[in-house]
């Protein structure tokens, strides 16, 4: 067993209205960043998880996303394994 550090990014699906992203987009434009064409706001979650392998850690996190962390109607997710502490737990 190793402890894996995971970063989970949950973001609004393409094409879906994201009022928060839109508001930030306008704010950036009004501050002079004219080159900004789109802003989408999602969220990031950092999870430490015991697993036997990186694949297992990733599969577990994806199951968490499907069941709770992301809403399949409105959000997509991405799981990244950012680190591992070998033998941290047993």
């Amino acid at each position, binding site marked *: 067993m190793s402890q894996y550090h995971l970063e989970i990014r949950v973001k609004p699906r393409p094409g*879906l*209205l994201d*009022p*928060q992203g839109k*508001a930030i987009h306008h704010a950036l434009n009004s501050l002079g960043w004219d080159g900004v064409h789109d802003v989408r706001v999602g969220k990031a979650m950092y999870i430490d998880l015991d697993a036997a392998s990186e694949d297992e850690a990733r599969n577990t996190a994806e199951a968490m996303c499907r069941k*709770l*962390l992301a*809403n399949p*109607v*409105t959000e997509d997710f991405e799981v990244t394994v950012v680190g591992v502490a070998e033998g941290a737990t047993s």
Partner: protein
Amino acid sequence: MKVAVITFPGSNCDYDLYKAIQMVDGEASFVWHRDRGLRGYDAVMLPGGFSYGDYLRPGAIARMSPVMEEVMDFAAKGGPVLGICNGFQILCEAGLLPGALMPNRSLKFQSKDVFVRVERADTLFTADYDAGAVLRIPIAHHDGNFEADQETLRRLEDDGRVVFRYVDRSGEPTDESNPNGSWHNIAGIVNDGGNVLGMMPHPERAMEPILGSTDGRGLFTSILRSLTPA
């Protein structure tokens, strides 16, 4: 009529709902989200509020409560389930209703009276209204912007499952009368079986003249009548 009012940590319309049920001579009981045992109840209602502080997404954590498994069973057997505001959000998260409730397009909490049109008067929740009737009912939410994929939205309209729609005073579903950006001004929908209704407006806050409107009563009298053998 025995009605279970499910309460979650953060529910805040539970007593209003309890009282509304009593006002139409129903028998109301609170059922705590950790409890089980919906046997013996004729209807289940999920109140508004901010269960679990709306953490993650409104309704996302409440939907995992032990009692929700029983609510799913109750609904699957055809039992009437009504979700108001946060209750609607929980029903969507639980998959008992399609779609999701996104943040209002204004990004502001909207608390005011709105007009909604009764699109279907042939559901067990709306039989005491006339189709096309315009009701004045309060809303109070930050995430009431109904959204779903195109296929789901098309089916909701084609199958006549939109029960309430935001309209102006004269009954027209205009953009100005849409308080949150909901697709097609949707304010309330039913499931396929017609026994699960979710709505953002608060009929339990429109029960007495002193509160400014009695237009919510019809919802509760309809449910009561559907459960009372003729």
